[in-house]
């Protein structure tokens, strides 16, 4: 069950990667920080307001931070090199993390369970599951469904896809490509924040919990084929479950090393992902 919880959150981070990658070709190494920011600010808001409102505020705050990042750091760069973008987004990730440390301090925080308490559990066919896991899976499924609908059935979503397919052509058709990039940062920040809110009762959140998530999320994004978000969901589950089973064979301490080894292996053998063929990886879904 832990595998599914983690798989979901990895998938969410991977989808965040994909949204930005598809519109800009940038891998945003600060993706994990959005999850942290979502969780942290939700905990803070929850001190003043009821839970649903706190989560909403947290998502909005993170979304705005996503927009600010794009406008301040990315927008005005003219065709930056890959190396430069990698370093800039890593810098942003460090900056967000350190700011969080100085704003929220070093302590571990958590939201209360949405339903029940930490000891409540539901028996699902012999397996004991905390209801929060259902929240995680449910909310994430809804988020993915809404995103898919957005990209397929709304004008804005189609414009964003047009941008990802061919930026110059889209611009000729009157699409403001710059705004689309901002929007993609906002979307991926928002989905990260939602993920952060739903998992933090289970996993807790701390100023430095974003970076490992970014690495796992990237692994999943690669596993599913960069840019392919539907595959990312499946890949997320695979990684999450593999990880939780790995500890039966190897010491827990090596758990992360295992998922990274999987990443390296895939990069070496099939950089287009296990679900993608090398030609299909050129096709971009949202």
């Amino acid at each position, binding site marked *: 069950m832990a595998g599914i919880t983690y798989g979901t959150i990895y998938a969410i981070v991977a989808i965040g990667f994909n949204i930005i990658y598809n519109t800009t070709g940038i891998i945003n190494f600060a993706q994990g920080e959005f999850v942290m920011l979502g969780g942290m600010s939700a905990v803070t808001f929850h001190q003043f307001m009821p839970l649903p409102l706190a989560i909403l505020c947290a998502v909005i705050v993170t979304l705005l931070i996503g927009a600010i990042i794009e406008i301040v750091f990315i927008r005005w760069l003219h065709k930056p090199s890959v190396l430069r973008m990698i370093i800039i987004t890593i810098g942003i990730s460090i900056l967000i993390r350190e700011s969080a440390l*100085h704003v929220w301090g070093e302590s571990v925080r958590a939201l209360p369970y949405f339903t029940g308490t*930490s000891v409540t559990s539901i028996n699902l066919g012999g397996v004991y599951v905390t209801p929060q896991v259902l929240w995680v899976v449910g909310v994430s499924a809804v988020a993915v469904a809404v995103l898919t609908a957005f990209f397929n059935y709304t004008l804005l979503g189609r414009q964003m896809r047009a941008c990802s397919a061919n930026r110059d052509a889209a611009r000729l058709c009157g699409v403001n490509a710059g705004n689309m990039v901002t929007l993609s940062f906002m979307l991926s920040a928002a989905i990260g924040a939602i993920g952060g809110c739903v998992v933090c009762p289970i996993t807790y959140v*701390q100023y430095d919990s974003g970076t490992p998530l970014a690495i796992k999320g990237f692994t999943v994004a690669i596993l599913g084929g960069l840019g392919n978000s539907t595959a990312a969901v499946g890949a997320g589950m695979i990684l999450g479950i593999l990880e939780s089973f790995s*500890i039966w064979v190897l010491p827990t301490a090596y758990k992360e090393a295992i998922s990274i080894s999987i990443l390296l292996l895939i990069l070496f053998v099939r950089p287009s992902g296990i679900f993608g063929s090398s030609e299909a990886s050129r096709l971009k879904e949202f």
Partner: protein
Amino acid sequence: MRKRIGITLAAFVMASLTAGAAWAAEPIKIGAILSVTGPASFLGAPEAKTLEMLAEELNKKGGVKGHKIELIIKDSGASPEKAFSFAKQLIDENKVFAIIGPSTSGETMKIKNVAEEGKTILLSCAAAEVIVNPVAKYVFKTPQKDSDAILKIFEQMKKMKISKIGVVSSNTGFGQAGKAQIEKLAPENGIKILANEVYDKAASDLTAEVTKVKAAGVEAILNWSIEPAQSIVIKNARQIGLKVPIFQSHGFGNIKYVEAAGEAAEGVLFPAGRLLVADVLPKGHAQKELLVKYKKDYESRYKEAASTFGGHAYDAFLILVKAIEKAGGADKEAVRTAIEQLKGVVGTGGVFDFSAADHNGLNIDAFEMLTVRKGKFAILKQK
């Protein structure tokens, strides 16, 4: 956080100003190397806050033997290489009288030699027993011994007729030192270890580990860790329906861990110093007055719960001041000898009785068996 940096900077400025000025009584410089940030910040942050509070308080009262205390806090971020650099800096450059810290065993072990070579008193706030066993001339530590905590737990287990346990420990120095001690002491005390799991200190879900322990058919879980991950063990164990008693180490002594585990923490048993239950200690207990005062001062100043970790720094500071008083002045050798002669010093961790062979000074009585009742620490009532 910002304020602390301010104070550190101020300390630097003062250091440079006072270097030339001739004051009536030279201030005593005390260095502190603490993991204020980084993976061990849950230790270092309260320690740094405690030291600042104590130094300010003491200086207001006129210092010790006419000397003001000048505190130089360095944030090592739990990096041994920084701890090494700072220890060198404090000893060679700032010429500090003594060093309090570091917060972690790993860092302490790296600078043990530096302190020995620089003939500077080191009062570590880290728990591992190797720090003072074997004894190094200038190195002391204030946290209680792991082995005493374990013996206290085994004592309790015997009372509860528990003999088959599952041990889970974190992969840090604290966790592994505890694990080694448990493995060593268990047979002597008639305890069988049926499952022995190690988890990552940064883990956030340990269902698989506790499932393994459950499968082994244990009568109790002994969870040895000082990191936040320990509350996850408790939570996950209850979630999978494992209802046996859970014993924790003295590293559980932070109310945040109870909050993190939520309801699952109810009834958890652990040995700890008495700071956590200061308010409910019987009147007239030797430590009561000091503990209540520290708790009140700390909580009103920093608006957060006091933890036993801050208490380790409190004791280090206290011991140093007592030893300076006893030695009659700031002479390193005299004070070092004075620490070894300190007896019956009441601190947050217990009553310290130092000797040339014991640089920790605490025994099994430093621990009280505690439990969690209604989300709060409480003294375990013996039936």
